[in-house]
């Protein structure tokens, strides 16, 4: 976010008065990440578009229920995208792993980097990608199948042909390691800012 621009929280507060310009600003700020997430999970542009539309509309309609002290507006929006995409994946029932769920650490889809926007998002995003990318492959894979693929622990066990206890262990240890390295990154960031 660039200095002088309203914060997400401020924009979300304005949605309560049906401020369509605030809505447009939130869309312009977060739609690329929202669409990227939906596309990775669903592997199909039109389904991803539907999910992002639903998510932004529920942001518009449910702005009163947003509690800024509990989560950032971006986290809230992305969790709506995530849940809607999971609903879709699970509705389909028995399904193959979408390419997106296992695509690992993809390169940027295009060269048109929005520099102003990137400054705000990319540091944290890079840390998350690194934290995930440096896990042992089997932990990374289990987490991606769970988070991006929406598979249950037993489905993951079946797919990877390992006992369910192994899957549980990989998910837990993988997340714990990510937590450690992200906590570390957070502390380094705080020290640098101080």
């Amino acid at each position, binding site marked *: 976010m660039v200095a002088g621009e309203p914060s997400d929280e401020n924009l979300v507060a304005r949605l309560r008065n049906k401020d369509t310009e605030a809505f447009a600003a939130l869309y312009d700020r977060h739609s690329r990440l929202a669409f990227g997430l939906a596309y990775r999970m669903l592997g199909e542009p039109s389904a991803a578009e539907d999910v992002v539309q639903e998510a932004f509309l529920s942001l518009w309609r449910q702005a009163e229920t947003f509690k800024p002290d509990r989560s950032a507006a971006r986290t809230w929006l992305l969790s709506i995208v995530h849940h809607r995409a999971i609903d879709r994946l699970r509705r389909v029932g028995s399904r193959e792993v979408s390419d997106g769920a296992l695509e690992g650490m993809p390169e940027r889809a295009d060269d048109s980097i929005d520099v102003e926007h990137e400054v705000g998002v990319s540091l944290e995003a890079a840390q998350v990608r690194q934290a995930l990318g440096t896990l042992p492959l089997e932990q990374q894979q289990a987490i991606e199948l769970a988070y991006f693929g929406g598979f249950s622990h037993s489905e993951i066990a079946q797919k990877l042909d390992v006992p369910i206890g192994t899957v549980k262990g990989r998910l837990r240890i993988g997340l714990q390691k990510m*937590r450690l390295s992200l906590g570390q990154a957070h502390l380094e960031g705080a020290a640098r800012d101080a």
Partner: protein
Amino acid sequence: MTHDEVGELLGAYALEVVSAEERAVIDEHIKDCPVCAAEVADLMSVHDQLALASVERDPPPALRTRLMNLVELDRNQWLLEQARSAPDQGRPTSNAAWWKRIPMLAYGAGAAVLVAAVVLAVVFANRNSVTVHLFHGSAVAQVVKGIDLQGAAGTVGVRSDHSTDVTFSNLPALPSKLAYELWLIPAKGNPVAVGGFNAGANRSFTMRYNKDATGFAAAAVTIERAPGNWPSPSPNSMAIVVKLAS
């Protein structure tokens, strides 16, 4: 489940991939186990951050257009509801000047069959870049020959495809000899009659006009003799006006 068995599941729990039964057991356990509760909080924060690991991607431009249309129409409806529930704003004071400049009042004064109602409360929303231009007005009317227009309101939204959505609501039913008529009023020149209508059982009227209303000074609904010869050559009463341009 023991504390250790719950612990083994916490990663799957934070990633929301446990069964419903497992989730219920863990929900109960962490109420009384601060150790597991703290780990859940930690792992959930990682779960929330995982969305950032996906690559940003441009959504189709049509998605933005569609969303903006939807929220503008929703705002339109919301403004109507606000206008309906707004308290009586009393007699017009500072707002009185602008509508006197609308040419139709000259017709109203000259050819009036019915007493003009009073216009109030213009909400004017200027939109430069987005797709729907929305204007809103409401009548806090006295009486048109015994017809109470209190609370009647309207919005006019010009859409990106150059059609115009017109909505008026809270319109009282009229005696059989009278009907409503919709007008577009240019800054100069005669009002353009769009058509006559009766308020339905829900006391509202909605239409999509297949022309762009941009450039007109106002939209208005008047009360005219009916059925008569539509369109009326000129408006005979001013009932509800939606100002279209600043």
